[in-house]
């Protein structure tokens, strides 16, 4: 297990390194920042001075090494939109809010998808199966921002049950978390359903029943424990979706998270902030995948004792 972890950790470092290359490369591909930032009538000498000042006259690999050096020291530069504010600091200030929202969304998705998936498999082709499929598909086919607006209209404006936007109480969390999580229910529930069907059809389930084990234990212990390994793989992808989902949803609900920050940064061409957000998001996703890999070992002894 320890060797497995060390191996995975090594791969994680490599992934993050690859992410910096992409972020750096994409940044350069959009054109040279000096042209974007300087007035059209700027003189050639001024342009050259700025290029020299920012190190843009150096060959690419030198620029990259300098960039990675800064990243390693946690220096992403100052925000252009809010002069004097460190880009990374701006991100780290809000990442907690985004993670909070993502975590609640994840819990909501799991809490809904697991029972629907399990019951759909146990009562295949029954009313439960069809209703579950309908609820799940609805969440996947409707765009986040639309559900968000409709939710605000119903639950905040008309029913006045929940606050329209912002962050503060637990009531503020409900709508955005449901909007983000609902999207994940469909995929997760279908994975659980098919994994459960396969598991329920297996010989070890037959043997468990032959032992006289209660049906409740057969389903929730023997079958689900095996079926859980399959959707676990999807968790890594799901985390990425949660992050992406947070961007539009945070805007709709004015949730003070990284999503809202990055939308503002993009419109303001605040490159240091955009780069910092990208790296931090990548870090979160890679970390989540590492956790998933560790969970694999927890769920599947065949991996643990490899």
């Amino acid at each position, binding site marked *: 297990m320890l060797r497995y972890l060390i191996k995975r950790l090594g791969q994680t470092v490599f992934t993050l390194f690859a992410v910096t290359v992409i972020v750096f490369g994409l940044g350069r591909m959009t054109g040279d920042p000096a042209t974007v930032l300087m007035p059209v009538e700027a003189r050639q000498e001024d342009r050259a001075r700025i290029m020299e000042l920012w190190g843009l006259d150096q060959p690419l690999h030198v620029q990259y090494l300098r960039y990675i050096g800064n990243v390693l020291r946690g220096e992403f530069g100052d925000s252009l939109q809010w002069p004097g504010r460190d880009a990374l600091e701006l991100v780290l200030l809000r990442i907690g809010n985004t993670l909070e929202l993502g975590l609640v969304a994840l819990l909501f998705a799991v809490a809904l998808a697991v029972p629907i998936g399990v019951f759909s498999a146990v009562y295949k082709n029954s009313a439960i199966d069809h209703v579950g499929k309908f609820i799940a598909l609805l969440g996947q086919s409707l765009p986040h921002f639309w559900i968000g607006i409709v939710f605000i209209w119903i639950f905040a404006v008309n029913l006045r049950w929940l606050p329209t936007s912002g962050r503060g109480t637990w009531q503020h969390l409900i709508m955005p978390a449901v909007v983000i999580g609902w999207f994940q229910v469909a995929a997760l529930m279908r994975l659980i359903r098919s994994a459960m069907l396969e598991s329920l059809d*297996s*010989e*070890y389930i*037959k*043997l*468990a*029943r*032959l*032992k*006289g*084990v*209660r*049906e409740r*234990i057969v389903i929730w212990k*023997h079958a689900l*424990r*095996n079926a859980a*390994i399959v959707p676990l793989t999807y968790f890594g992808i799901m985390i990425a979706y949660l992050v992406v989902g947070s961007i539009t949803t945070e805007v709709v609900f004015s949730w003070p998270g990284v999503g809202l920050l990055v939308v503002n940064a993009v419109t303001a061409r605040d490159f240091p902030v955009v780069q910092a957000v990208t790296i931090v998001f990548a870090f979160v996703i890679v970390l989540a995948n590492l956790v998933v890999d560790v969970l694999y070992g927890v*769920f*599947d*002894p*065949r991996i643990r*004792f490899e």
Partner: protein
Amino acid sequence: MLLEVKDLRTYLFTKRATVKAVDGVSFYLRRGETLGIVGESGSGKSIMALSLLQMEPKPAGRIVGGEALFRGDDLLRKSQGEMRTIRGRRISMILQDPQTSLNPVFTIGNQLNEAFVTGKQGLARGGVRKAVVDVLRKVNIADPERRVTAFPHQLSGGMKQRVVGAIAISCSPDIVIADEPTTSLDLTIQAQYLRLIKRLQDTTGVGVIFITHDFGIVAKMCDRVAVMYAGKIVEHGPVRSIFNHPSHPYTQALINSVPKLEERTERLYSIPGQPPAPGQELVGCRFAPRCEFADERCRQEYPPQFEGLSRHSEHTADCWRLEDPTWRPSRH
């Protein structure tokens, strides 16, 4: 009589056809006795065995008739809740493939614990652990104290099947149904396993229903044998009587297809033709299309059961040919 099955019928209802997987099967089992059920794959042996525990493959499978009297009590009339207290406790089963019949994510100890806990609520925590170790020792697993923490993938195939055997005998059942328990084991392990079952039976007096397609194993293990073909028992009797005087052409063909060590043959015998396709509407004798003796009547009408063959009251067979007394084997 420990178990008496009368006219058991389990059909599989699919969209295309109704498959009469078990089509009126009757047999009995006495205490401490081993009954062999022999037949090709697809003859309905496994579905028959699962039906006794109301575990026929759902949703397609349904028991449509018959009774299975276990100590005089009809198993087929019991609720699923009542059956749960019989499964594992009174009647247990060993499945064919040890590689897949143990749950890969739980330890051996956990899976055995469950058998004990569901079986005997009275055992204390420490008692269960001791019982688990004891039963593993009974099935010849070396170092059982250490093995309880092992996962299935850490054991060999033969060892896994012994664990499945341990689960089967954990609650000292009255009947163990062994469904081709050695088919997926290699030959030396197979012999070991068969000896183990035999020994356990001698010490506990459990009744065993041994399902196999191998007449060689029947000869070694069983007191009586029932030959199944396309959902019906076509011949039944004491092993010796069946071996010496097989009366149904299918039984004869099966016995002929067991390779003999003392004979040198160029070509192994095989029964011509194929068993009937599932769902095919069957009139007359199921074996008629493959039978060298079949005539028009065989194809039209199912033969009655002839009893007392080879002067043995328990030896029966379903074949029109036995109408003619000269065809009936007699004891020499």
